[in-house]
């Protein structure tokens, strides 16, 4: 079997290669599909930090994905209509600058993750799953009942937001932005995994009592992990909204939370590239099986069941030798 690290390089190169080949062959739809996989992978990388390394089974990560999406939607819609978000006590105007939108998405989703974490980390097990789900649903219904930003219908943004020096409407350039962000975040997460924080966090997942006994506080470790996790998924939400030039309450739905979790299970829980492999597989299946049958979710369910039953490490676990890093 090949090493996990080598496997990861291949996955990254395959994704980059697919986009480049599609570009050369002038297949913008394929580039967009690949971009979608990259963005969903990023959302999964976020959740995987909480789920895989922290052991925090959150079924509410759609909250952060949606917040990132609406950060983009709200800012861009105000820029589109030249109306400020608010005038008093101070003026806040919309923007269509991607970096600014990303920053707002990261700040909003990490704040939200901090608060949700603070409240839900008091529980564990099934209760934690339920509490996070409940928070996600709260934001979902809030987004539906907020007519100023489209309510149930969502918000359309007519022009993709801008990034200095690039033409973001060109599919390959937008892909490049998303791919670069994914690689940067994966690099950061890999550093984090091997850092003192990673050692303590993964230790707390295995045995919280042990971590407590050496004088560390598992709650603080998990709260920090949950916050960073939410920030990453929030950033993915902003990119996803920009990909579609559209946001809607669907981004907040529990199905979205479930799908992000499915990426991780498919690819391999706690594996650095688990969500990447999972999201790519998901998009492939959705595209192929979805074309064959409207009931493609049934096939997805069967595959998922097989992974859970026969390949606990996900696809990466089945294909690559495990890298030993605090897991």
């Amino acid at each position, binding site marked *: 079997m090949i090493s996990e690290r080598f496997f990861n390089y291949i996955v990254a190169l395959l994704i980059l290669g697919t986009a480049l080949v599609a570009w050369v062959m002038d297949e913008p739809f394929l580039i967009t599909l690949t971009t979608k996989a990259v963005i969903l992978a990023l959302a999964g990388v976020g959740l995987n930090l909480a789920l895989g390394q922290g052991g925090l089974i959150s079924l509410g990560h759609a909250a952060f994905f949606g917040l990132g999406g609406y950060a983009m939607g709200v800012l861009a819609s105000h820029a589109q209509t030249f109306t400020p978000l608010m005038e008093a006590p101070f003026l806040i105007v919309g923007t269509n600058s991607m970096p600014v939108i990303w920053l707002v998405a990261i700040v909003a989703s990490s704040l939200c993750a901090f608060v949700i974490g603070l409240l839900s980390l008091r529980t564990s097990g099934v209760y934690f799953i339920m509490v996070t789900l409940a928070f996600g649903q709260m934001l979902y219904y809030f987004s539906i009942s907020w007519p100023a930003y489209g309510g149930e219908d969502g918000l359309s943004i007519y022009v993709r937001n801008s990034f200095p020096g690039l033409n973001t409407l060109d599919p390959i350039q937008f892909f490049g932005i998303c791919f670069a962000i994914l690689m940067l975040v994966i690099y950061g997460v890999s*550093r*984090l995994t*091997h*850092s*003192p*924080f*990673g*050692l*303590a966090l*993964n*230790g707390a997942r*295995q*045995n919280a*009592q*042990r*971590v*407590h*006994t*050496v*004088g*560390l*506080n598992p709650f*603080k*470790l998990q709260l*920090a992990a949950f916050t960073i996790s939410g920030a990453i998924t929030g950033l993915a939400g902003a990119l996803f909204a920009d990909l579609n030039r559209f946001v809607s309450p669907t981004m907040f739905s529990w199905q979205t939370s479930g799908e992000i979790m499915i990426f991780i299970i498919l690819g391999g829980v706690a594996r650095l590239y688990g969500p990447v492999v999972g999201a790519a597989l998901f998009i492939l299946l959705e595209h192929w099986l979805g074309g064959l049958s409207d009931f493609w979710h049934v096939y997805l369910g069967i595959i998922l069941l097989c992974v859970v039953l026969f390949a606990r490490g996900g696809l990466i676990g089945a294909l690559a030798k495990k890298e*030993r890093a*605090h*897991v």
Partner: protein
Amino acid sequence: MSDAVLNILNISKSFGALKASDDVTLDVRAGEIHALIGPNGAGKSTLIAQIAGKLKPDTGKIDLLGMDVTRMSIAERANLGLGRTFQISELAMAYTVLENVMLGALGKRGGAFRFFKPVMKDAELRERAESAIERVGLSQHMNKVTSELSHGQRRQLEVAVALTLEPKIFLMDEPMAGMGAEGSKMLTSFLDELRGQAPILLVEHDMDAVFALADRISVLVYGKVIATGSVDYIRNHDEVRRAYLGEEAA
């Protein structure tokens, strides 16, 4: 009493109708090994759990180094200087021996909220961890995954993690359990030296080890301390012999 590192004052703890600790008063002094013995279910582990902060006593007070720690968390007590080993191993089972001990070294030094530097390459932590592993004799198993260790080796590992904390007092709950005769003997001589570094409250069923090591012994029966004193005093204590030692000491 003046040189007591740990003072337990009138601790009581009930589980429903069961009195697991019944007005327990006990102290551990600098330089000593204070053994806590008693039949199964007497409440030894429950007492250790209250000292460590895992359980809160219903009434009573726990002083550590002259500080009232009764309301403090496990982590706060650990940071004050309490090193604990468990009756049933509490280790990160998927971690290697080294990783588990590094966790202890990290807890002691602090800086767990550093997100970027590789922890296994931290020379300071590595040195602390490796020397603790060497002291308990696990050097040749340093890179073994904990779940693959024998029960005795897990015990040694727990001691190694506690060592990295450089505690002011050790609480050890049956550290010899599951060890062979050879292992028990080695650990006995190790603990004998360790008391010079910090006193030990030692829960142990191995009477040979207890009589060889203890400066003082307290006997717990049904949650109550029925006697505290030197090895000879306890060996010849009528009530203790009746309640616990039986023929063993006869």
